[in-house]
Protein backbone atom coordinates (compact mmCIF):
# COMPACT_ATOMS: atom_id res chain seq x y z
CA UNK A 1 0.00 0.00 0.00
CA UNK A 2 1.20 3.48 -0.77
CA UNK A 3 1.63 5.83 2.15
CA UNK A 4 3.50 8.82 3.49
CA UNK A 5 5.09 9.27 6.89
CA UNK A 6 5.76 12.67 8.36
CA UNK A 7 8.63 12.27 10.73
CA UNK A 8 7.84 15.15 13.07
CA UNK A 9 4.46 15.92 14.60
CA UNK A 10 5.64 19.34 15.78
CA UNK A 11 8.42 21.64 14.56
CA UNK A 12 9.33 24.92 16.20
CA UNK A 13 11.58 27.52 14.56
CA UNK A 14 12.42 31.14 15.12
CA UNK A 15 11.31 33.75 12.63
CA UNK A 16 13.94 34.21 9.93
CA UNK A 17 15.49 30.75 10.36
CA UNK A 18 15.17 27.84 7.92
CA UNK A 19 12.25 25.44 7.94
CA UNK A 20 12.55 21.69 7.32
CA UNK A 21 9.48 19.46 7.43
CA UNK A 22 10.27 15.84 6.72
CA UNK A 23 8.25 13.34 4.71
CA UNK A 24 9.05 9.83 3.55
CA UNK A 25 6.89 7.91 1.14
CA UNK A 26 6.26 4.28 0.42
CA UNK A 27 5.32 3.42 -3.13
CA UNK A 28 5.90 0.62 -5.61
CA UNK A 29 5.27 3.00 -8.45
CA UNK A 30 6.48 6.45 -9.39
CA UNK A 31 4.43 8.54 -7.00
CA UNK A 32 2.76 11.90 -7.25
CA UNK A 33 3.48 13.83 -4.07
CA UNK A 34 2.04 17.00 -2.64
CA UNK A 35 2.35 19.32 0.32
CA UNK A 36 -0.79 20.97 1.63
CA UNK A 37 -1.04 23.59 4.36
CA UNK A 38 -3.92 24.29 6.70
CA UNK A 39 -4.15 27.54 8.58
CA UNK A 40 -6.58 27.74 11.50
CA UNK A 41 -10.21 27.77 10.38
CA UNK A 42 -9.18 27.58 6.74
CA UNK A 43 -9.37 24.86 4.11
CA UNK A 44 -6.39 22.81 2.97
CA UNK A 45 -4.31 24.77 0.46
CA UNK A 46 -1.89 23.25 -2.03
CA UNK A 47 1.70 24.42 -1.50
CA UNK A 48 3.37 22.40 -4.24
CA UNK A 49 3.29 19.11 -6.13
CA UNK A 50 5.71 16.66 -7.71
CA UNK A 51 4.51 14.73 -10.75
CA UNK A 52 7.70 13.14 -12.18
CA UNK A 53 9.05 16.25 -13.86
CA UNK A 54 11.78 18.29 -12.11
CA UNK A 55 12.84 16.77 -8.79
CA UNK A 56 13.12 20.18 -7.14
CA UNK A 57 9.67 21.68 -6.93
CA UNK A 58 8.99 25.29 -6.05
CA UNK A 59 5.71 26.24 -4.45
CA UNK A 60 3.94 29.24 -3.07
CA UNK A 61 5.20 31.50 -0.28
CA UNK A 62 8.85 30.56 -0.82
CA UNK A 63 8.47 26.86 -0.04
CA UNK A 64 10.15 24.15 -2.05
CA UNK A 65 10.55 20.39 -1.86
CA UNK A 66 12.99 17.94 -3.38
CA UNK A 67 11.98 14.47 -4.54
CA UNK A 68 14.76 12.01 -3.70
CA UNK A 69 14.00 8.54 -4.98
CA UNK A 70 17.08 6.97 -3.38
CA UNK A 71 15.91 8.18 0.02
CA UNK A 72 12.16 7.88 -0.68
CA UNK A 73 11.84 11.39 0.69
CA UNK A 74 10.00 14.59 -0.19
CA UNK A 75 11.04 17.07 2.47
CA UNK A 76 9.59 20.58 2.53
CA UNK A 77 11.93 23.51 3.08
CA UNK A 78 11.92 27.27 3.28
CA UNK A 79 15.04 29.39 3.75
CA UNK A 80 13.51 31.89 6.15
CA UNK A 81 10.40 31.35 8.26
CA UNK A 82 7.76 34.00 8.63
CA UNK A 83 5.21 34.28 11.40
CA UNK A 84 2.45 33.69 8.86
CA UNK A 85 3.92 30.23 8.09
CA UNK A 86 2.63 28.89 11.41
CA UNK A 87 0.14 26.20 10.39
CA UNK A 88 -0.42 22.47 9.95
CA UNK A 89 1.41 20.90 6.99
CA UNK A 90 0.42 17.67 5.29
CA UNK A 91 2.48 15.49 2.99
CA UNK A 92 0.20 13.69 0.55
CA UNK A 93 0.48 10.96 -2.10
CA UNK A 94 -1.84 9.85 -4.89
CA UNK A 95 -1.93 6.05 -5.08
CA UNK A 96 -1.09 4.53 -8.43
CA UNK A 97 -1.24 1.05 -9.83
CA UNK A 98 -4.64 0.23 -8.40
CA UNK A 99 -7.67 -0.50 -10.54
CA UNK A 100 -9.38 2.55 -9.16
CA UNK A 101 -6.26 4.68 -9.09
CA UNK A 102 -7.49 7.32 -11.49
CA UNK A 103 -10.04 8.73 -9.07
CA UNK A 104 -7.19 10.81 -7.69
CA UNK A 105 -7.95 10.23 -4.03
CA UNK A 106 -5.33 11.68 -1.72
CA UNK A 107 -3.52 9.72 1.00
CA UNK A 108 -2.42 12.03 3.81
CA UNK A 109 0.43 11.89 6.26
CA UNK A 110 -0.19 12.55 9.92
CA UNK A 111 0.56 16.24 9.67
CA UNK A 112 3.27 18.47 11.14
CA UNK A 113 2.44 21.53 13.19
CA UNK A 114 4.86 24.35 12.46
CA UNK A 115 5.32 26.90 15.21
CA UNK A 116 7.19 30.11 14.41
CA UNK A 117 8.55 32.05 17.36
CA UNK A 118 9.26 35.77 17.16
Amino acid at each position, binding site marked *: AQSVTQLDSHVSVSEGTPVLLRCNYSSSYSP*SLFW*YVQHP*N*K*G*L*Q*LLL*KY*TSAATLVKGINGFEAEFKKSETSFHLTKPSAHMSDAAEY*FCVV*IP*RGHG*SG*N*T*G*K*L*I*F*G*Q*GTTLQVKP
Partner: protein
Amino acid sequence: EPEVTQTPSHQVTQMGQEVILRCVPISNHLYFYWYRQILGQKVEFLVSFYNNEISEKSEIFDDQFSVERPDGSNFTLKIRSTKLEDSAMYFCASKLFVTSGDTDTQYFGPGTRLTVL
Protein backbone atom coordinates in the same frame (compact mmCIF):
# COMPACT_ATOMS: atom_id res chain seq x y z
CA GLU B 1 -10.62 33.55 -6.64
CA PRO B 2 -13.22 30.77 -6.68
CA GLU B 3 -13.32 28.62 -3.58
CA VAL B 4 -15.07 25.62 -2.14
CA THR B 5 -17.54 26.47 0.60
CA GLN B 6 -19.02 24.25 3.29
CA THR B 7 -21.97 24.65 5.63
CA PRO B 8 -22.41 24.57 8.52
CA SER B 9 -18.98 25.24 10.01
CA HIS B 10 -19.99 23.31 13.13
CA GLN B 11 -22.79 20.79 13.58
CA VAL B 12 -23.78 19.26 16.90
CA THR B 13 -26.15 16.30 16.86
CA GLN B 14 -27.39 13.51 19.05
CA MET B 15 -26.32 9.93 18.43
CA GLY B 16 -28.71 8.20 16.06
CA GLN B 17 -29.78 11.38 14.30
CA GLU B 18 -29.34 12.03 10.60
CA VAL B 19 -27.05 14.84 9.48
CA ILE B 20 -26.43 16.40 6.09
CA LEU B 21 -23.21 18.24 5.44
CA ARG B 22 -23.26 20.63 2.53
CA CYS B 23 -20.59 21.70 0.11
CA VAL B 24 -20.57 24.01 -2.87
CA PRO B 25 -17.66 22.99 -5.13
CA ILE B 26 -16.01 25.34 -7.59
CA SER B 27 -18.54 25.82 -10.35
CA ASN B 28 -16.82 24.25 -13.38
CA HIS B 29 -15.21 21.38 -11.50
CA LEU B 30 -16.10 17.81 -12.40
CA TYR B 31 -14.75 15.61 -9.60
CA PHE B 32 -15.84 15.82 -5.99
CA TYR B 33 -14.54 14.31 -2.77
CA TRP B 34 -15.26 13.96 0.92
CA TYR B 35 -12.52 13.44 3.49
CA ARG B 36 -12.65 13.39 7.25
CA GLN B 37 -10.21 13.99 10.08
CA ILE B 38 -10.90 12.60 13.52
CA LEU B 39 -9.24 14.75 16.16
CA GLY B 40 -5.57 13.87 16.43
CA GLN B 41 -5.64 11.51 13.45
CA LYS B 42 -4.87 11.64 9.74
CA VAL B 43 -7.10 13.11 7.09
CA GLU B 44 -8.85 10.09 5.54
CA PHE B 45 -10.47 9.67 2.15
CA LEU B 46 -14.18 8.80 2.26
CA VAL B 47 -15.57 8.96 -1.26
CA SER B 48 -15.09 10.36 -4.75
CA PHE B 49 -17.93 11.32 -7.06
CA TYR B 50 -17.99 11.93 -10.80
CA ASN B 51 -20.69 12.11 -13.43
CA ASN B 52 -23.40 11.75 -10.79
CA GLU B 53 -22.14 8.54 -9.32
CA ILE B 54 -19.65 7.29 -6.77
CA SER B 55 -16.35 6.43 -8.46
CA GLU B 56 -14.53 5.16 -5.39
CA LYS B 57 -15.25 4.78 -1.69
CA SER B 58 -13.23 3.75 1.31
CA GLU B 59 -14.01 1.11 3.92
CA ILE B 60 -15.21 3.89 6.21
CA PHE B 61 -17.96 4.80 3.74
CA ASP B 62 -20.48 2.15 4.73
CA ASP B 63 -24.21 2.11 4.07
CA GLN B 64 -24.78 4.74 6.75
CA PHE B 65 -23.16 7.25 4.41
CA SER B 66 -24.45 8.62 1.14
CA VAL B 67 -23.56 11.43 -1.21
CA GLU B 68 -25.63 13.42 -3.64
CA ARG B 69 -25.36 16.29 -6.06
CA PRO B 70 -28.99 17.34 -5.97
CA ASP B 71 -29.01 20.48 -8.05
CA GLY B 72 -25.79 20.89 -10.01
CA SER B 73 -24.20 23.18 -7.45
CA ASN B 74 -24.40 21.51 -4.05
CA PHE B 75 -22.62 18.31 -3.08
CA THR B 76 -23.89 16.72 0.12
CA LEU B 77 -22.75 14.04 2.54
CA LYS B 78 -25.49 12.37 4.56
CA ILE B 79 -24.96 10.24 7.61
CA ARG B 80 -28.19 8.37 8.34
CA SER B 81 -27.73 7.42 11.96
CA THR B 82 -24.77 9.12 13.56
CA LYS B 83 -22.47 7.35 15.97
CA LEU B 84 -20.10 8.83 18.52
CA GLU B 85 -17.16 7.80 16.35
CA ASP B 86 -18.47 9.92 13.46
CA SER B 87 -17.33 13.02 15.35
CA ALA B 88 -14.70 14.57 13.10
CA MET B 89 -13.87 17.42 10.76
CA TYR B 90 -15.33 16.70 7.32
CA PHE B 91 -13.68 18.27 4.28
CA CYS B 92 -15.14 18.60 0.83
CA ALA B 93 -12.86 18.96 -2.19
CA SER B 94 -13.29 19.45 -5.92
CA LYS B 95 -11.14 19.14 -8.98
CA LEU B 96 -11.44 20.37 -12.52
CA PHE B 97 -10.05 17.66 -14.73
CA VAL B 98 -10.51 13.96 -15.09
CA THR B 99 -7.62 12.48 -17.03
CA SER B 100 -5.63 9.32 -16.92
CA GLY B 101 -2.89 9.48 -14.30
CA ASP B 102 -4.66 12.51 -12.96
CA THR B 103 -2.70 14.66 -10.58
CA ASP B 104 -4.69 17.84 -10.82
CA THR B 105 -5.06 20.01 -7.78
CA GLN B 106 -7.90 19.32 -5.41
CA TYR B 107 -9.35 22.45 -3.85
CA PHE B 108 -10.60 22.03 -0.31
CA GLY B 109 -13.31 23.72 1.68
CA PRO B 110 -12.75 24.94 5.26
CA GLY B 111 -14.47 21.89 6.73
CA THR B 112 -17.48 21.13 8.90
CA ARG B 113 -16.80 20.06 12.45
CA LEU B 114 -19.33 17.39 13.39
CA THR B 115 -19.84 16.64 17.07
CA VAL B 116 -22.00 13.65 17.97
CA LEU B 117 -23.20 13.57 21.58
